[in-house]
C-alpha cells in the first residue's frame, strides 16, 4: 500500500488530472454542442497544467536571469513552459474555429442538441440518396415516428 503525502506538488497533480477528467467526462457524456466546446477548453487547460507541472523542481525559481542572482540557484525547466506557451495560443485558435462550426450547425439545423442534429443529418443523407430514412440501431421507434410525421 502506497502512502500518499499531502504536499503542494501532489495537490497540484491531483487538480490537473481531475480537471482533465472532468473535461473528458463532459466531452463524452453531454449532448449540447456548446457545452462540449466548454469541456474541450477544460480538457486543454488540464493537459497544459500537467505539462507545466512536469518541469517544476523543488525550490526552483522562474527561468529568467535577473541581476542579483547567485550562480548555484535552481531553475525550473524552460522547455515545457515554451511548449505550453505555444499550446495555449493554438488552443484559442481551435476554440474560435469550433465556434464558427457551431454557428454553421445552428444555421443549418436550428438546434444544438447532438441527438437532434444526428437525426436530421441522417434524414438529409437519406433524402439526398433517394432512399427511405434508415432506422437507427439506438432508437428505432422514435426515429420512424418523427420521419412518419413529416411525410
Amino acid at each position, binding site marked *: 500500500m502506497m502512502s500518499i503525502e499531502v504536499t503542494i506538488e501532489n495537490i497540484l497533480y491531483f487538480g490537473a488530472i481531475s480537471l482533465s477528467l472532468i473535461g473528458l467526462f463532459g466531452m463524452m457524456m453531454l449532448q449540447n454542442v456548446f457545452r462540449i466546446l466548454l469541456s474541450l477548453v477544460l480538457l486543454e487547460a488540464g493537459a497544459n497544467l500537467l505539462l507545466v507541472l512536469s518541469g*517544476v523542481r523543488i525550490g526552483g525559481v522562474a527561468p529568467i536571469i535577473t541581476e542579483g542572482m547567485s550562480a548555484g540557484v535552481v531553475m525550473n525547466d524552460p522547455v515545457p513552459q515554451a511548449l505550453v506557451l505555444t499550446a495555449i495560443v493554438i488552443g484559442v485558435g481551435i476554440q474560435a474555429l469550433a465556434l464558427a462550426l457551431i454557428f454553421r450547425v445552428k444555421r443549418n439545423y436550428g438546434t444544438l442538441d447532438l441527438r437532434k442534429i444526428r437525426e436530421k443529418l441522417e434524414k438529409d443523407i437519406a433524402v439526398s440518396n433517394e432512399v427511405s430514412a434508415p432506422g437507427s440501431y439506438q432508437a428505432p421507434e422514435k426515429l420512424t415516428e418523427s420521419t412518419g410525421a413529416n411525410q
Partner: protein
Amino acid sequence: MTKYTSLLFIAGLSFLLFVIVGYLPIAENPMVAGKAILGSAQQEVGSANIVTSVVLAYRGLDTLGELSILFAAASVVGLLLGKSYSTDSVKTQKSGQAKEYKQFVVLKSLDLLFPMLLVVGMYIIVHGHLTPGGGFQGGVLLAVAFSMRSIVNPGSDKKNHYSITFIEGFAGFSFILIGVLALITDGNFLQPLLGKGEFGSLWSAGTLPLLYLAVGLKVGAELAGLLFELNGEEERV
C-alpha cells in the same frame, strides 16, 4: 449502453493516470534538454528570459509553424462566416450611431482604456526578452484594443479589413525574411544575428526583439480579424 461504456473508459483512464503519476519522480525529473539549455542560453543567445530563447531561437521553426496554424484557423473562420459578416455591416451602421448615447459610460471608459491597452501591449512585446511576456500576450492586448469598440457598439467600426490584412502579411513576411537573412549570413535558419549586445539591456539578444515584434503584430492582426468575424449578426433559424 454507450453511456456506461464511456463511464467505464473514464474510470479506467483515471485509475491509469493516478497510478502513473504516483510512480513519477515528482518535482525531480532529470530535465535532459532543459539543463543543457539553461547552461548555455546566456552565452549563445544572450536573452535574460530563457523561455523566450527557447521559443524563438532553439525552437524558432516551431513558432513559425504555430503562426501558420493560427493563420489557417483565422482564414477558415473567415471562410465559414464571411458572407453574413459582409452583408450586415451597412444595415447596422445607422442603429449603431443611435445606440451610442445609450452606452455612454462603457464607450467613454473604453476610450480611456484604449491608449493604456496600446502602451501595455507594446511594453509587453518589446520587453519580451527581459521580463515575462512577449509577442503572443502583447498581441492579444493589441487585438483587444482595436476590436473592443466595435464589439461594444457593432455599428460604429470602420471595418478597415484591408489594413489588418496588410499588417498581418507584412509581419509574417518580416519574420520569414529575418530567418532567411540568418540563413544566408550564418548558415542556420532563424539564428540570432546582430550581436548580443549588453546583457539585460533593451537592445540585446540580437534579432529576438524584432522577431517578437513581428510575432506580436501578426498575432494581434489575426486575432483582431477573428474577433471582427465572430462579432456578426445573430444566427437566424
